[in-house]
């Protein structure tokens, strides 16, 4: 083997070994790398109950209720399979909307209500002009579908 090929092999082997190490480490940290838990995971008791965690999903349509003080909000987070009720006191981000993505940080109470101290809007990957979104909406209504699939593409 020429020295040049040897160096090439060392780099190739080194990168392969590095990739394996990284894969193992990331796999071991899997749960800690999750930014949020879905309602299904919460029901499956995968989320920690003894410390704050984040819950993520869609804001269930028609579930947002504001208290008289104007700051306290109650809504439900859904992943279209399970639903977790959330209460939050504070200012919501602009993109917080029913049917859109949300990530809330807080604790799950023994009563099953998630008390959030931070609510973030989670944007989806779809970009289109308002007219297109309106047309899509109309088409959806005429088909009678109620819930858009999570992460679906609006074409």
């Amino acid at each position: 083997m020429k020295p040049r090929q040897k160096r090439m092999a060392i780099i190739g082997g080194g990168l392969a070994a590095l990739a394996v190490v990284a894969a193992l480490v990331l796999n071991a940290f899997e749960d800690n790398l999750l930014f949020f838990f879905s309602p299904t995971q919460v029901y499956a008791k995968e989320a920690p109950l003894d410390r704050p965690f984040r819950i993520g999903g869609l804001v269930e349509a028609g579930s947002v209720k504001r208290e008289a003080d104007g700051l306290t909000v109650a809504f439900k987070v859904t992943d279209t399979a399970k639903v977790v009720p959330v209460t939050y006191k504070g200012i919501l981000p602009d993109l917080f909307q029913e049917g859109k993505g949300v990530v809330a940080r807080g604790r799950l109470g023994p009563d099953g209500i998630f008390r959030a101290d931070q609510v973030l809007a989670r944007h989806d990957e779809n970009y289109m002009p308002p007219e297109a979104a309106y047309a899509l909406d109309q088409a959806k209504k005429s088909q009678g579908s109620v819930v858009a699939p999570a992460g679906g593409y609006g074409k």
Partner: protein
Amino acid sequence: MAIHWFKYASPASFYGLAGRMIPWFAGAAVVTTLIGLYVGLVLAPTDFQQGDSYRIIYIHVPAAWMGMFTYLVMAGWAAAGVVFNTRLSGMMVQALAPTGAMFTFVALWTGAFWGRPTWGTYWVWDARLTSTLILFFLYIGYMALRASIDDPRRADRAGAVLTLVGVVNIPIIYFSVQWWNTLHQGASVRPGSSSMATVMLTGMLVMAVAAWMYTIAISLARVRSIIIEREQHSAWVGELLASEGHDAVAGTSRGAMGSNQQGTR
């Protein structure tokens, strides 16, 4: 083997080649930036959810892509430098690093300013954001490592090892939004499909081309400076400077930097 291919691996001949290429790439960068900004800021409509704040994508996405891609190119040059022992490779890695760092910083910075109104926060420690921050630190770390080693050939080798080790981060950044739950949204553009309106996508892709052209032009310009600086004691640089009317540097301090500048290729 492949003698012709290696002709431009010599800093002396690459210096001239780079000089001839710079105006073309710089011109293309200006033209594509103007077109991209016109499409993105004038022609493209507002977004149905975000209004006008989505227009961040015309800088944020090309910058993020460029930050990641520049690192891959650096790793490629670093590997070539280790394998073929060419001086130019280390110089190219050195020339690309500041631009890659700049684009990564722009991606982080614009993302933070977009995140505040859109998500409700400047920063979260989700997988996408954290791995991109690590990319930025890799660039900074590479530049710091270089700066701490006086002998440029040793700095090349140490930098190559750091660059190659860090390349494992690139697929992690790219796939982080698929592998884990992140606050950052998934990819809007993937090979063969996109979930963006055509005009918006066009503007973003033109801006991505502009980022490429800029990166190529600026790193060629930078590598020319690096070549002149590191080859200053060689005969051809002396002749070049003399022909351009400068006082020749060559000869005045020959040998002060050590003799390792000659020899390899």
